[in-house]
């Protein structure tokens, strides 16, 4: 492994230090998206509203649990946190329940999530293309859903 990491510090880190998000907010990385959550529950964890759960990963909070299409995951107290009249979902506990890999920097308030295994299985077992979101050079968002009805060739390359 290359260990001469700081050979070109001006190239490695040319950017001015800027905050990731306003004080108290959180940043979530998932499927190519960077999602800022301004309204989160108390503590330094990742307690999100039901609406933000859906915004992050498409799951909807229903009486039977957190549901995504035909899949419903019953939730217990580890994931659901009730505070007065407000319901929060502990997104880190939800990831643990689903065995969804992630890396978090709690100090900075950032959670970077890998794919949810139940969604991943569709790709790895049924060959369904994975959900992703990238921007093209003109700033237009490109999602898997945009490709429906067309044949798509996706190629990767690099300048290096």
């Amino acid at each position: 492994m290359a260990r001469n990491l700081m050979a070109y510090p001006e190239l490695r880190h040319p950017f001015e230090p800027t905050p990731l998000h306003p004080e108290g907010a959180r940043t979530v990385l998932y499927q190519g998206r960077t999602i800022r959550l301004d309204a989160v529950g108390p503590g330094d964890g990742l307690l999100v509203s039901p609406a933000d759960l859906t915004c992050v990963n498409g799951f909807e909070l229903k009486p039977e649990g957190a549901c995504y299409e035909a899949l419903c995951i019953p939730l217990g107290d580890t994931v659901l946190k009730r505070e007065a009249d407000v319901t929060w979902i502990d997104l880190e506990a939800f990831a643990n329940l689903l065995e969804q890999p992630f890396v978090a920097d709690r100090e900075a308030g950032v959670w970077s999530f890998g794919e949810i295994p139940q969604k991943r299985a569709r790709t790895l077992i049924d060959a369904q293309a994975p959900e992703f979101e990238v921007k093209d050079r003109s700033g237009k968002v490109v999602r898997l859903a945009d490709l429906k009805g067309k044949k798509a060739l996706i190629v990767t390359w690099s300048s290096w």
Partner: protein
Amino acid sequence: MDVPVWQRVYEQIDDPNFVLISAAQDTGGEAAAGPIFDAAGATYVQVIDQDHVISQAFNFVNVPSAAWIDEHGTIVRVDEGTYAKTHEFSAGDQSITFGTDVYTPAVLDWIANGARSRYVQSAQNVADKLRVFSVDEQRADAAFRLANLFRAHGQAAKAEHYWNLAQELNPESINYFRQNLTLSEEGSAGASFRARREAYIREGKDYYRPLDIAPG
């Protein structure tokens, strides 16, 4: 380089129901990859994928790699060393050849014949071809994205930490290995890269995923 070659293929296909997405896996961003798209006069969908989102979505670990997705959102071919043509160039008195001429005709055949193309693979074949990442390898992808976020916000120490973590969690990712080398003194094609390639050859491992298409 395949970027201009794919432009010619795209023009040749000229089908409104065909989308070509070319995704540069480049933390160097627009400055690194943009001029290459511009020089090719690219009109297909050009993505500068600083976070390697496309590689992560398909569990690719090297470039070039590709996926074919049909009209129904099903992957019908995936994860091969997918050069668009054979490239030759000279380095000193040596002539270096890499790439292949069999892949582009297979793409053209698929566009023309769809599900009837003999290059279309079954869901089972595709599933067998896709790499299954361990939890650590998936966490490597998450760490890489985290590193890039910190880098973009000028937080060098955290960026270095998570960039290293990505490589430690997935040492088989040539993407992360070489992307990191781009910002080292030796560059992405220096001694470390050559040693790595030689180790692959010595150990009988594929540097590129084998292309399962017979020549001719």
